[in-house]
């Protein structure tokens, strides 16, 4: 699994389309011609990640929205990011 630095920010990979539908999301990677679905929680995590300056900032925002322990949220967020990175659906880069 790719290494994830919370100081970095996340961006959608160039050839990925994403559309929200009914509170969930469907991603299409035009390069690999594969689809990925995100449930409501995954969709919200994705939205916050893309809106935030860093993964850490996204984590802190999500912590205010979900009634889970910080450790559980970090674990879930890392798992989602790992899947997205392994499937090249997002990229991470240092903040400006």
């Amino acid at each position: 699994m790719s290494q994830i630095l919370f100081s970095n920010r996340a961006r959608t990979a160039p050839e990925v389309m994403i559309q929200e539908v009914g509170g969930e999301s469907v991603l299409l990677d035009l390069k690999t011609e594969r689809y990925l679905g995100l449930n409501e929680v995954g969709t919200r995590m994705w939205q916050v990640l893309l809106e935030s300056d860093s993964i850490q900032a996204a984590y802190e925002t999500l912590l205010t929205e979900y009634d889970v322990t910080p450790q559980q949220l970090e674990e879930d967020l890392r798992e989602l990011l790992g899947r997205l990175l392994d499937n090249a659906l997002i990229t991470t880069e240092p903040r400006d």
Partner: protein
Amino acid sequence: MTESTGAHLSLTCGGGKFHCYRIYGIRLSSQIQLPFADCESMQTVDVSLLAESPDFFREATRHAVMTPSPTRWYKYAQLGNGQSYLRWDDLFEFLVDADGRRIWCGWLGAASLESLQVYLLGHALSFALVKQGYEPLHATSVVIDGNAIAFMGSSGFGKSSLAAAFLADGHRLLTDDMLLLRRTDGGYEGQPGPRRIKLFPKIARRFLAGTAGAVPMNNETEKLVLQLSGDHSYSDGVPLRALYVLGPPREVRRKQSIQLISLTARETFIALIRGAFNHVIAGSERLTRQYTEYLNVASQVPARRIGYPRVLSMLPAVKEAILSDVAELARTEQHDRTYAAG
């Protein structure tokens, strides 16, 4: 049930005369006379169907590299000039033009007109439709009180058999095997397909009063092609009310009950992607269009996953379960409309 001649046709059928048909809401001009009523001659044509000789296809595919289809039912080749070639050994071959405006047809052996319909107006036409920007679904649809419901699922999951149970109950077939949707102001409209259904003999005997006039689809299956009369088929586009995604036959055991589960829009989208009629044509442009279109369908049309024991005697009960669900959907929508207006 109409009679079928089961006539075998030569390549010279039709001669220079073109017949005009309207199928799936598409205007077809055909050199091959199909077993449908001609419509008025049309000024514009969406697809032309032309008969050609083996030499024509040999020349066109001289450098073609053949690939088995995803289901291995036929072979195909994408030619350098954008044309698509499809071949069912000992049956038919087709060449679809790059822009989907023409389909050339050739016979490779003795096969009936009814059989040609299945291959020409199914797989071959699907290539033409996708090239023209449509996204046909692998689905069978019946009309309930002026609205269409569609059954989706892989080949062999029982879509046509389930439709036959509805026909036996007095409902009418909108289309069998391929469903074309058109977007309307209110949602989506299912388009009428050829007036025929493909069934195994025991299903036809149980629900459609026998197999008189039915013609075998090909030598490798017992499935029959049955032409339908106007009493059993619908000839206009109708609003699509709901989708029913059939689970695999072995998923529900014989003594288990019928399972009907609502799908989220995301799950419906995945079902639509899996249920696309044509999985061969790829590329960014097609995938982007398909993605956008199916997301729209998924967000507007309710869908259910239905599982049931594949026991013939259960089909009427499955039909009733679906009819109850459709009625409930209508009540819910009426309720929502009432509250929205109030």
